[in-house]
């Protein structure tokens, strides 16, 4: 579960997050839409403990992330917009390194399975990451989340810059994770992907969650109109 309670964050005089409340339950994919500067990445950074909220509380699996940062990180996986890995290591070596750092130990076969499950082609598993496309690197990121058995997944614009096929593959993997009761918080500009992938959609503007929808209950055209209206105002 991911939960933000009355989070406020200011940078200087600018309020980036304003008394924000969000809750993502296990098996939910919450897609957070918003223009640049709306506060999406700031919220992710707070959940990751990279920055601290001025007020309010953030929880990962009911763990207060400020009080217990290490414990909270045991339950989460994170994939940024442009996931960068170690170019001199292979896909499987990167996966092994990150999972070992998280305290997990797997055999070579198990690691290969995670990468395959994440959709990485078998002939790339033992190739250096320097030859990987962005989509392939994202898949290694997913494999890290799978291997870590993370119950919370934070995604910061993960599909931006991906081709349609890769974005579709990514969405399929997220659905698999959803079915494993993982709570996913995904920030995105991609309305179509949000509608297709998310179970819930929220619109963030000036640090406030101004609207939320259940994905199944709203059609794409209405969502688009609403979003454009909110962005215009």
């Amino acid at each position, binding site marked *: 579960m991911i939960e933000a309670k009355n989070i406020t964050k200011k940078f200087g005089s600018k309020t980036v997050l304003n008394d924000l409340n969000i809750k993502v339950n296990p098996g939910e994919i919450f897609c957070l839409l918003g223009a640049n500067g709306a506060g999406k990445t700031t919220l992710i950074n707070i959940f*990751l*403990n*990279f920055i601290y909220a001025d007020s309010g509380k953030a929880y990962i699996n009911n763990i207060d992330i400020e009080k217990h*940062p*290490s414990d909270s*990180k*045991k339950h*989460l*996986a*994170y994939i*940024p917009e*442009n*996931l*960068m*890995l*170690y170019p*001199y*290591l292979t896909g499987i*070596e990167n996966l092994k*390194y*990150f999972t*070992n*750092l*998280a305290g997990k130990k797997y055999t070579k076969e198990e690691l290969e399975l995670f990468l395959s499950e994440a959709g990485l082609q078998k002939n790339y598993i033992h190739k250096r990451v320097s030859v990987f496309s962005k989509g392939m690197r994202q898949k290694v*990121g997913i494999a890290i989340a799978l291997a*870590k058995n993370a119950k919370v997944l*934070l995604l910061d614009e993960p599909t931006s810059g991906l081709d349609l096929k890769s974005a579709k593959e990514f969405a399929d993997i997220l659905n698999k994770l959803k079915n494993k009761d993982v709570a996913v918080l995904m920030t995105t500009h991609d309305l179509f992907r949000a509608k297709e992938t998310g179970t819930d959609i929220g619109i963030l503007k000036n640090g406030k969650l101004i609207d939320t929808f259940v994905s199944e209950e709203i059609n794409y055209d209405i969502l688009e109109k609403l979003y454009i209206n909110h962005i215009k105002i």
Partner: protein
Amino acid sequence: MLWLIAQKELKEIIRQGVLKILILTVLVLLLVSLVISFSYNRYIDSLHIKSEKESRELWDKQGDKNQHSAAHYGLYLLKPKSPQALWDNGLDRYTGAAIFIEPHVRNNTMFKAVQDSPMLAKWGEFTPSFIMLYILPLLILWITFNIISREKEQGTYRLLKSQGVSSLKWIAGKASAVWIITILLIVPVFLTAGIIFGKGAFFTVESFLLLLTYLLYAGIYIHIGIAVSALTKKSEISIIFLVGFWVLTTWVIPKITSSITQNIYPSPLESEFKKNIRDEIYKNGILRHDINHKNTIAFTKKVLKEYNVNDVSELPFNFNGYILQAAEDTNNIIFDKHYAELHKLYKKQTNVYTVSGLFSPFILARQISMGLCKTDLWSHINFTKATDEYRKLFIKTINEDLIKSPYKPNQRFIRSNDLWESIPKFKYKLPGLKLFSEHYKYVYSIYLLWFVVSAGILLFTSKKIKF
């Protein structure tokens, strides 16, 4: 976790072509410098043994002569090289390693390598210490300059932090990797060189301290390199800062210190130094070869009065020998005084260097390296003092023999090889750790402080890393 991070770093470093080539290049340079240094030292050692032996044989077999004439024939005494000199030739090329001993005068060392090969003075020597103190830091800087900043630039740091890795463990892991590479580069070479070139005599406390000194020096660069990489946002800024640090501490500060030292405590010119001694001897000493000199006349009168005789031929001993030894005793006091003042000046000069070591670990490492290799100023002075003690004994033995010889005006007494052979041979043992600790305890303390502070800075930066 520390080993996990270190392992991954090592893997990455080994897989980077440029770094692999650089590490191999430093290794090859180190090995080549060791072979060159070994060949040179072996050549010098064999030359010294041969020269000293020949000089002594010529002395022993010089045949029938008057004692004083024989003394003027003189002897060459040569400073042996320590096993550690393989790593650092230090000041030997400037100070020289041979002294000619003779009556009346305390000579300076001769056969200075820089005089025989002026290019040496201009470019310096290609020694292992040159590689350790100048080149190795550059390799370390190349490995460390982007070791953290690269991860911040490419974004892997965020992913790492999301795994719950603490900055302290992360930095410590990276430092461990660079330490491992450095140790693997230095220690096996050091030990192998000791076994191959040192022939057992190499493995002493001095050698252990020398190895430790080089490792600490590398460590200072490892810590500073990683700390700067952690504190800068861009690798370009990091490399500029670190190269600047290297230039400043290994070139600029030592040169400035040298100039400041020479301004505060100027060394006398050799000609000026000798002239001062000559002038004082002329004023207060006894000039045996100038019988009309006032001090010589006064001394002769004093002896005649003391023994209540009218002529030196009436004295119960050979006056020629007596006045020669009296001249030695009197003039040696003057020599000793001037040399003691000179050494005091050198001490003041080295104190300035020690203080400037607060701003440059290179200055400290250089001094310590020379001190442990016994190629420093204090080892040189130790040798010259030993040769002068021997000179005093050598001349006194000859003069005492002359004193016992019958005195005949206008006739010189002649002695043969048995006397020359009876003079004990010069036996010099290189100074031990006592001399090193006497002159380098503060230098080493500041050096250790550099290491501790650099490690502290590294620890501190782990709390200051920003995204």
